[in-house]
């Protein structure tokens, strides 16, 4: 069986070796298809991975806030939930905002293996310096834990998050904001909120430009500093959770939300619109690159089809000698597969070169040297090869079937 296969493959190779030009054209078609498939998909998948990584890291994987997805049920509804009744216009009891019993929520989040939860309090304050007012949102954090769950440390141009612990009334603001206020690290600004009298704070760090939200409208302070500034002692309204496996975020968030009732938003939920955009992008990319591969397979079809028509006489001879229909079909399908194989190998090389070129390009963005994110995983190579072989096999099989159906009598009778 192996001997027979090798023998028939030998015949296919011999056929191809006698039509070098056509073979070369078909092979380059496949090679270009595979090469560009690799380059394009490496770009697309690479940038997608990079993008998702940024989405994941932009904020904690799960953010539990003191919001509720629906208003808390009124006592009447609690008691007569199933009864026929309607409540409206009732007087709602004013509740203190913030996550109640947040230590329990923290404990539950920390109980997830590899997870770290960080409490914070956010609120609005006004920074004032020499008659210039800037309304900003402040975030009170525990620097030690916060650095572990977010990439906030990377966004700092000057200072470190831990500096908040060592400086009384320390605050970290963005470069843009600092420029508008005219302050630098070490300077003092006045901060006031709606619920407390003003106090002075010292700038201990600056966020980089570019991250507009951080850079112009946010200030980081110590948690207890924020609690006193906002007049909400012992209260937090936000818990950020970082997980060992970001992709478990959705499930963990759901569990936490069901258990405590507070809105727990995973990064997937937060960026659902981006993720659906990525799906669309993938559909577009794979349609385009599949079209390239499909067009490449037309070349294979042409070569094998020509080979079959040129070799009708030889096919009749082989049939008369005792080659079966299956043998003939096999020979011509193998011709297509050989073309695919050489094409795929050349295409891998081409793709590798294209990726190396793309990977060597560097762009200065926002003062940093950025490289194009590329996905160079073997998976791409495997996908490209599988798709080409499939297309090549089908492209060869159609004319090969024709070859097997050649009636030797017609050819022998009318032989020239």
């Amino acid at each position, binding site marked *: 069986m192996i001997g027979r296969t090798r*023998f028939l493959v030998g015949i296919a190779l011999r056929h191809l070796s006698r039509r070098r030009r056509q073979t070369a054209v078909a092979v380059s078609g496949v090679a270009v298809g595979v090469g560009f498939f690799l380059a394009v998909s490496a770009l697309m998948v690479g940038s997608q991975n990079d993008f998702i990584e940024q989405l994941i890291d932009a904020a904690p994987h799960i953010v539990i806030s003191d919001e509720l997805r629906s208003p808390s049920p009124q006592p009447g509804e609690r008691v007569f939930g199933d009864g026929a009744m309607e409540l409206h216009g009732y007087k709602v009891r004013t509740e203190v905002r913030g996550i109640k019993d947040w230590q329990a929520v923290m404990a539950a989040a920390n109980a997830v293996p590899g997870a770290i939860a960080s409490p914070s309090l956010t609120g609005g304050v006004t920074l004032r310096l020499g008659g210039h007012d800037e309304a900003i949102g402040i975030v009170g954090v525990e620097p030690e834990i916060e650095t572990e769950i977010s990439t906030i440390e990377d966004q700092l141009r000057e200072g470190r998050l831990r500096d908040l612990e060592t400086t009384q009334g320390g605050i970290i603001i963005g470069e843009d904001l600092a420029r508008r206020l005219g302050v630098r690290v070490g300077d003092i600004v006045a901060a006031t909120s709606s619920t407390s009298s003003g106090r002075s704070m010292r700038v201990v760090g600056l966020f980089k430009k570019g991250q507009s939200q951080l850079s112009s409208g946010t200030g980081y302070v110590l948690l207890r500093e924020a609690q006193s500034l906002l007049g909400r002692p012992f209260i937090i309204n936000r818990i950020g959770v970082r997980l060992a496996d970001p992709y478990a975020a959705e499930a963990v968030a759901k569990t936490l939300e069901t258990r405590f009732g507070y809105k727990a938003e995973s990064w997937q939920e937060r960026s659902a619109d981006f993720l659906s955009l990525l799906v669309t992008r993938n559909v577009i990319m794979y349609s385009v690159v599949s079209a390239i591969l499909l067009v490449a397979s037309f070349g294979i079809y042409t070569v094998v089809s020509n080979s079959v028509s040129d070799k009708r006489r030889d096919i009749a001879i082989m049939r*008369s000698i*005792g080659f079966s229909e299956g043998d003939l079909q096999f020979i011509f399908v193998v011709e297509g597969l050989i073309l695919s194989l050489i094409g795929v190998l050349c295409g891998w090389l081409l793709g590798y070169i294209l990726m190396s070129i793309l990977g060597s390009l560097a762009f200065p963005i926002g003062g940093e040297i950025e490289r194009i994110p590329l996905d160079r995983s073997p998976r791409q190579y495997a996908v490209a090869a599988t798709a080409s072989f499939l297309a090549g096999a089908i492209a060869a099989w159609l004319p090969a079937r024709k070859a097997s159906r050649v009636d030797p*009598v017609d050819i*022998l009778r009318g032989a020239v």
Partner: protein
Amino acid sequence: MSAILETRNLGRNLPGDPPIVLVRDVNVTIEPGAFTTIVGPSGCGKSSLLYLLGLIDRPTTGELLVEGREVSQLSGDERARIRLARFGFVFQFHFLLPEFSALENVMLPIQRLGRLPIAQAREQALGLLAGVGLEDKHGKTPDRLSGGERQRVAIARALANDPILILGDEPTGNLDSHNSARVVETLHALAHEQGRAVACVTHDPGIAEASDVQIEMLDGRVENVIDRRPAKPQGLLGREPSAD
């Protein structure tokens, strides 16, 4: 004498209205050790009969027995197997595969049958080429050989798997008289010295008259069969004188 091929009311029609009759009601036997020719005017169905006998074409009516076994209903693969292992073909045009050397052409059926390792297949093919006087030209492709040489390679290829039956479709039709005589001589030797069955379609009256059995066809029918072999006692085989 056990026949290699036997036909019973063999017929072949092409579909049409009315159907076109290529061959009808043919009852012939092809026997080992005999050189059989099929003759008749153009279009009388002699090539069609040869293709039926060679299992290249399928009959529409009647039976065809190869060594006593009815084969017309066998699958394409089984028929291909019989052609490969038991039959050898020589055509008017040499019909060698142009991409392959003379040696490789002869090796094709041996390798396809797959009974011999490649070294032995090569050995056997070289032996066959030597038999037709072409051992020194085995590396040449068909376009580097003369017409007579190509036809001799084709004969060597027909003998590749040691067939019991050699079928020729005007094997000398395209050759000059010298080469033609040489090919006929070879075919006679295959029948008389090696005891194979040889059946050839021919236009050449000289070849027909020199044959052992001459089947004359007209309008798809066998008109006459001339058997020139010396009469033998009924049922007696050379090696078994007292079989009866």
